């Protein structure tokens, strides 16, 4: 049955007669950056005479099939000059085009820099591309440009506070975001518990966040897709850059292996605070690093190969006694192949491993605790450019996952710890999808599709049968069922329909609507607001059902001032079934009977998102405003009463701007304001023995103070750059300009003075607000060659 959909898809491609049985020719190729040969994703291709066109796919490929004739093809992309070229099409043509950043002179090509109207004309809604060049000019904490910090400013996105790399999209929790680097999932995107993300700005080519209207090729998480793609490496000339910051330094090298055919890029970043600390005799040390490397071989348009790896880790060491580390390693091999001039195929093999380790070196209490999550994915994605009004995409994804939640080993013969291991869990995840982008009329275009997710929890595993599966106080196993390797334990099948439509009202405005259903079969085991690297994940199982989200969104899009300012207003409603939560007081670390802590319930969220964006000109940036509300209702949590989600914030306003003052100086600024996030506070206190204990009556019934902060930055490019082979620049940032003490969290303790001495008789308690960053200036020196 699972192959039926694929068969239908193939039939659609090869056998469905085209509506007008008229001879057609195809023009196809790749759209690239003229300077470095990088493919441009989502570039617009328009056939002026027909008023129709397409956009390049995620590999930079386009194809259009049209009747023979004379046509003017127009290629454009944000931040680049538009190229127009005339063709007299009599047979299939392959045309790769390179868009320049600066005006150039070429025969038979017209170059303009007219802004494009994708905001209005594109079917996509609830989606933002992030311009990494702009991220680099914006203020950065400790001078480290971070794409996640920019994502946290987008409409519909909420943060738990500064200093975290998690984000919350349209009422979804942090683990409901699928974060991909070169198609490989990143399970924990944080360095230093979230102060920075794992994405090194030097190697990012392109990134986009979908918070709704999610195409059928994506699945596995409920709330958003963050796709980060790294550069292929300049295939025209050798180059690189390096940066020295307060906290970390980085270096990137790229260049052709064979000009225009093959290139490489390698980049590394490491924090070095530990080097100074070690020199100063400090024994508590920490560092993180990232390495990205990629090679590609673009044999011709028909066969192109890519190999990308990422590895990054955080290492903490306390006095050589206790330490922990965590990190992701991913690898992606891709093969782009053209079966014919209209059928584009991408085959990927992807591996990902997230692991952490805690280690205590001690004779009497030494231990090593390891946990990891491995996955291997095979993806076959196909694009069929049927004709000028239909573009099909379909494919098959297969993922094998191994969850190893924990094993503890004593590290000395006299350790009090016994060797203990939690059972591994395994899953096989199939997905078949089919989608079509169809132009129904001059005004109305739709993208519709379906994704069939078939999830299998497989052996080998011993599944425990409980007297009461939700008794987490005294779990009683009444039976154990053993499953062998690859033996099916539980299968969940979900059909996920997706549809988006765009109706053009006039040359400057359109309305768009979308509906999508998403299913999630990997569940984060955390009851906190912000995930930490020591959380584990579990597959759907007999005790954990797939989480399902249904979302509808409606939007109005308008461009003003000749497409230079893009306005959008979107409203959404999202309903989540089986949202994974945990019993009050759940014990989530190293619990043999973890399944007794699972509580699944409902979550619902709705909101309004406004955005005004200016992408081109001396002044660029955006203003976003979000009003939203997110609630949960989970059996046996909060006395069975609905409660606000931990990350609920009613109002969020963000302003992001950069200004090119002259050739030497550019400036950037952020301002963010949001309503404080919900907090559970004590209603009273009591004594138990001599402990002063908070009495809790309601979850998330209080809210932290409002959060607001302004950051400023300046980038200086010295004049003497012009006549030498390398260029330098200085980046200055001031984080939290007016040094606002924003509440990170509030906890309670016995009343104490500043020296930690108890005030009074030791009965009284007080609330302590923790704020992370006061005003923090930073400086980074960069060179590019």
């Amino acid at each position, binding site marked *: 049955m699972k192959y039926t959909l694929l068969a239908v898809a193939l039939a659609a491609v090869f056998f469905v007669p085209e509506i007008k049985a008229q001879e057609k020719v195809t023009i196809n190729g790749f759209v690239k950056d003229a300077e470095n040969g990088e493919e441009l994703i989502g570039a617009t291709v328009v056939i002026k005479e027909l008023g129709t066109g397409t956009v390049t796919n995620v590999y930079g490929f386009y194809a259009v099939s049209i009747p023979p004739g004379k046509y003017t093809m127009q290629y454009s992309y944000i931040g680049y000059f538009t190229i127009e070229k005339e063709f007299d099409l009599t047979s299939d043509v392959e045309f790769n085009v390179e868009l320049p950043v600066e005006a150039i002179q070429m025969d038979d090509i017209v170059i303009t820099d007219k802004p494009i109207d994708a905001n209005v004309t594109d079917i996509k809604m609830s989606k933002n591309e992030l311009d990494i060049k702009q991220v680099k000019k914006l203020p950065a904490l400790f001078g480290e440009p971070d794409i996640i910090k920019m994502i946290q400013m987008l409409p519909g996105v909420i943060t738990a506070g500064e*200093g975290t790399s998690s984000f919350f999209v349209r009422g979804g929790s942090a683990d409901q975001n699928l974060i991909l680097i070169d198609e490989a999932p990143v399970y924990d995107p944080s360095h230093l518990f979230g102060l920075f993300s794992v994405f090194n700005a030097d190697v990012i080519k392109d990134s986009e966040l979908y918070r709704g209207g999610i195409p059928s090729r994506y699945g596995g998480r409920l709330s958003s897709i963050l796709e980060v793609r790294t550069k292929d490496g300049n295939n025209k000339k050798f180059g690189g850059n390096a940066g020295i910051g307060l906290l970390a330094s980085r270096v990137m090298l790229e260049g052709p292996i064979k000009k225009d055919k093959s290139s490489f890029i390698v980049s590394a970043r490491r924090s070095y605070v530990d080097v100074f600390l070690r020199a100063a005799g400090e024994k508590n040390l*920490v560092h993180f690093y990232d390495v990205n490397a990629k090679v590609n071989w673009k044999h011709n348009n028909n066969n192109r190969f890519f190999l990308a790896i990422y590895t990054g880790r955080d290492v903490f060491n306390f006095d050589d006694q206790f330490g922990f580390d965590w990190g992701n390693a991913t690898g992606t091999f891709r093969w782009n192949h053209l079966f014919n001039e209209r059928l584009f195929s991408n085959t990927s093999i992807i591996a990902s491993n997230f692991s952490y380790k805690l280690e205590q070196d001690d004779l009497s209490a030494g231990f090593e605790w390891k946990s990891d999550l491995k996955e291997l994915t095979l993806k076959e994605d196909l694009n069929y450019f049927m004709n000028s009004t239909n573009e099909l995409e379909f494919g098959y994804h297969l993922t094998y996952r191994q969850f190893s939640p924990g094993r503890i080993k004593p590290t000395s013969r006299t*350790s009090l710890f016994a060797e203990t291991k939690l059972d591994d869990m395994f899953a096989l995840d199939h997905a078949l999808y089919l989608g079509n982008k169809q132009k129904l009329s001059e005004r109305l275009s739709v993208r519709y599709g379906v994704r069939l997710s078939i999830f299998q929890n497989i052996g080998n595993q011993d599944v425990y049968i409980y007297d009461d599966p939700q008794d987490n106080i*005294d779990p009683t196993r009444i039976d154990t069922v053993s499953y062998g390797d690859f033996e099916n334990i539980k299968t969940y099948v979900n059909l996920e329909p997706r549809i988006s439509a765009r109706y053009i009202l006039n040359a400057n405005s359109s309305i768009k609507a979308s509906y999508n259903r998403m299913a999630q079969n990997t569940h984060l085991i955390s009851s906190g607001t912000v995930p*930490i690297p020591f959380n584990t994940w579990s597959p759907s199982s007999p005790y954990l059902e797939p989480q399902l989200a249904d979302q509808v969104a409606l939007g109005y899009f308008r461009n003003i001032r000749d497409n230079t300012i893009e306005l959008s207003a979107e409203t959404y409603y999202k309903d989540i079934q089986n949202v994974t939560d945990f019993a009050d007081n759940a014990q989530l670390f190293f619990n043999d009977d973890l399944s007794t802590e699972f509580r699944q319930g409902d979550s619902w969220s709705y909101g309004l998102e406004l955005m005004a964006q200016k992408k081109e000109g001396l002044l660029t940036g955006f203003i976003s405003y979000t009003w939203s509300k997110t609630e949960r209702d989970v059996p046996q949590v909060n006395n069975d009463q609905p409660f606000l989600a931990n990350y609920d914030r009613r109002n969020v306003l963000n302003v992001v701007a950069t200004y090119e003052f002259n050739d030497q100086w550019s400036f950037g600024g952020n301002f963010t304001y949001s309503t404080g996030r919900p907090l559970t506070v004590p209603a009273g206190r*009591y*004594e*138990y023995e001599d402990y002063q204990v908070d009495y809790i009556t309601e979850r998330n019934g209080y809210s932290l103070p409002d959060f607001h902060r302004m950051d400023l930055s300046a980038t200086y490019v010295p004049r003497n750059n012009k006549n030498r082979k390398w260029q330098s620049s200085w980046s200055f940032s001031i984080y939290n300009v007016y040094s606002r003490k924003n509440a990170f969290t509030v906890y309670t303790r016995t009343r104490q003075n500043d020296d930690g001495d108890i005030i009074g008789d030791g009965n009284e308690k007080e609330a302590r607000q*923790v704020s*992370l960053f006061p005003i923090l200036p930073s400086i980074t020196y960069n060179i590019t060659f």
Partner: protein
Amino acid sequence: MKKILIILSLFSFAACEETVTLDLENSEPVFIIEGLVTDQNINQYVRVTRSVDFYASGGAETISNAVVTVSDDNQTFTYTHNPNASTDSLGYYLSTQQFAGEPGKVYNLRVEVNGQVFTASDELFRVTEIDSLTSEIDEEEFEDPDEEGEFYEMLFYTTEPQDTKDYYLFKFYKNGAIIRDDENDIFFSDDELLAENIEGVPTAGYYSLGDTGTVEMYSISNSAFIYYNDLINLLLSDGGLFGSPPVNPRTNIQGGALGFFQTSAVASRSIVITD
């Protein structure tokens, strides 16, 4: 989870903490019951109090009019409020006769106050012996002691029975006074990760030469283990950022009161700190 907060604060170099005043509404008080039956032949105690507002001054509201009994299968022990009429024992009820709890028996608590009835049951388990205690200089503390001459640590040795499921609560004393590293420390454990030979595990705090160090090891039930686990999570809550939002501990007391009724066998051992 507060530990992650501390680590993160280190990183932000200038993280700041300040006392803030929460705008809290007055709460409906809840009864708190704390009871302990040990295998020692003593006047066992039960304490009955009520919660107070978070910002109230002074200690808990003590309750003196409760009717308290503890029973096993055979007999019922009655308790009287503060029989010695001491001002610091308000809210404490002592068994009118001395009795020793016996391993293997289930004890039932009944507290009636203002027409409300609270009940609880706990099974008393046997406890393994403390094999020995030793003391030695802690090198790091020796180099930089918090208190002059206080740099000895007490080490603890026992044999964990591997064929039974056991739960332990520990209390450490210095010259008769309870000692902890942090005011909110609770020392308790299940045996899931424990090997058979527990050899030389350091206890809390540091001692000077001549001090008397004492370890009390209590057997506790699974539900007491759960209670202490929940209690420490609440005491060390980071406000629900990295960890769960704070929530009341699960108790064995029925009827809507908080607290716990615990039964324990106690093993105790003392040493005088020497070189």
